């Protein structure tokens, strides 16, 4: 099976975006959120398939609603974001698995190889470059606010606005990944490279570059390996397995300290 070259290029850019935003998701202790976002997209995917719309549009709509909902509840109440996300994600998964037609469920959950047209290529590439630009431009503000919200307040940082932007860009990254990883595995692609990078890094600069590199390498090699195998589940599982192997290799080689 041959891989579309556009698909390969796009996957690489998405992987870099996922690796970068994953670093901050991990440090902000939002690991559960990344998984949850994938699941939140599921009812949207299901409804879109039922009504014959592009599933990604449905997934995107569900995710944006979910992201804003999480941000609102977080701001209006003192409930921790993990608790809110946990509730919203379980509910979404339940609704999603009820309304998604059975024959499409596996693809929605695990992703699949698809041919993409040039319009979709352009939009997805633009969004992932947007995610990369957002992280590179705001990494200083993100670092301060994750270390202390009070320090952020005295550094001219609008923490609420920054959090909203972060959660929206985070949601966008998950939507992009749904294309090839599916709802179940996209979360892992955001978190696993970041976790591997965090373990071997002593500075933010190293962590960001390592996470992007690990993510790109796993995605690229995962797509190649998966294309040689006949997989009903698509390339997602292979990509995540390779990323996890890199994580464990890091644990064993342990260059830190």
């Amino acid at each position, binding site marked *: 099976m041959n891989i579309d070259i556009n698909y390969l290029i796009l996957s690489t850019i998405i992987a870099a975006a996922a690796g970068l935003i994953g670093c901050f998701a991990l*440090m902000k202790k939002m690991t559960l959120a990344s998984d949850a976002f994938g699941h939140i997209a599921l009812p949207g995917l299901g409804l879109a398939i039922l009504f014959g719309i592009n599933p990604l549009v449905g997934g995107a709509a569900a995710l944006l609603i979910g992201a804003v909902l999480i941000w609102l509840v977080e701001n209006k109440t003192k409930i921790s974001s993990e608790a809110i996300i946990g509730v919203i994600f379980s509910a979404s998964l339940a609704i999603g698995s009820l309304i998604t037609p059975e024959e499409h469920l596996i693809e929605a959950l695990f992703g699949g190889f698809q041919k993409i047209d040039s319009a979709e290529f352009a939009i997805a590439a633009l969004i992932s470059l947007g995610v990369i630009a957002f992280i590179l431009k705001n*990494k*200083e*503000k993100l*670092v*301060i606010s994750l*270390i*202390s*919200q*009070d*320090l952020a*307040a*005295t*550094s*001219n*940082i609008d923490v609420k606005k920054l959090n909203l932007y972060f959660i929206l860009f985070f949601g966008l990254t998950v939507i992009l990944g749904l294309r090839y990883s599916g709802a179940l595995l996209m979360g892992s692609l955001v978190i696993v490279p970041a976790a591997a990078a*965090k*373990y071997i*890094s*002593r*500075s*933010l*600069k*190293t*962590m960001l570059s390592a996470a992007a590199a690990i993510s790109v390498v796993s995605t690229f090699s995962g797509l190649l390996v998966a294309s040689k195998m006949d997989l009903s589940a698509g390339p997602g599982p292979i990509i995540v397995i390779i990323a996890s192997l890199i994580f464990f290799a890091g644990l064993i080689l342990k260059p830190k300290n």
Partner: protein
Amino acid sequence: MADILEVNNLSISFGRIKILSGLSFSVKEGSSLAVIGPNGAGKTLLFKALIGAEAHSGEVKWKPGVKIGYIPQKLDLERDLPVTAFELLYSKAKTMGLGSKEVEEAIELVDLSLADSKQPVGNLSGGQFQRTLIAFALIGDPDVLLFDEPTAGVDAPGQNKIYELINRLKKEKNLTVLLISHDLTLVYEYADEVLCLNREKMCFGEPRKVLEPKALEELYGSPQKYYIHDEHRH
């Protein structure tokens, strides 16, 4: 000297519980104010209201254009956070439109070595991390420094060094300093004025005048041990 801060009728409530009520006081430019009080008195909350990070009623009026540096009490950092002290400081400089020159200046001011600043923040000792936070506050040339228990988590010899550092910075840069402290001896030594707080203002004035054993017993609910290094300092 003119007031740099005026607080009028400041109150903070969480739901129906009032944490701070009807607090009014003012701070003169270039002076140092110590805030003392038992745990749960609302000291940290007061500071958060002063920096605009906590919703409150009443008025917090800083002199127009004043820049504030804040040193928080204790940060629960992951030990393995891959962020170096230098990166943390540079992040502040960047958001303030400054560069690495200002970071190096701040590092020098607090006697942190450049080599230590290249360590991940989780690897720093309590004292080194405290210096990093002070350097963080100094970036952007503040007029006021707010210290929330500057020596919590720092060993005894380190504590004196931190206080000497605060005092030196105050003089060199003509800073106004507000600090929360549990160490009454140091309050006597370093503060021009003291605010006793237990959800409301219990006393306010020169430490020597207002910190009588009876006032302290009232504030803390039990007799306090303290001593004065030099009776005839003034």
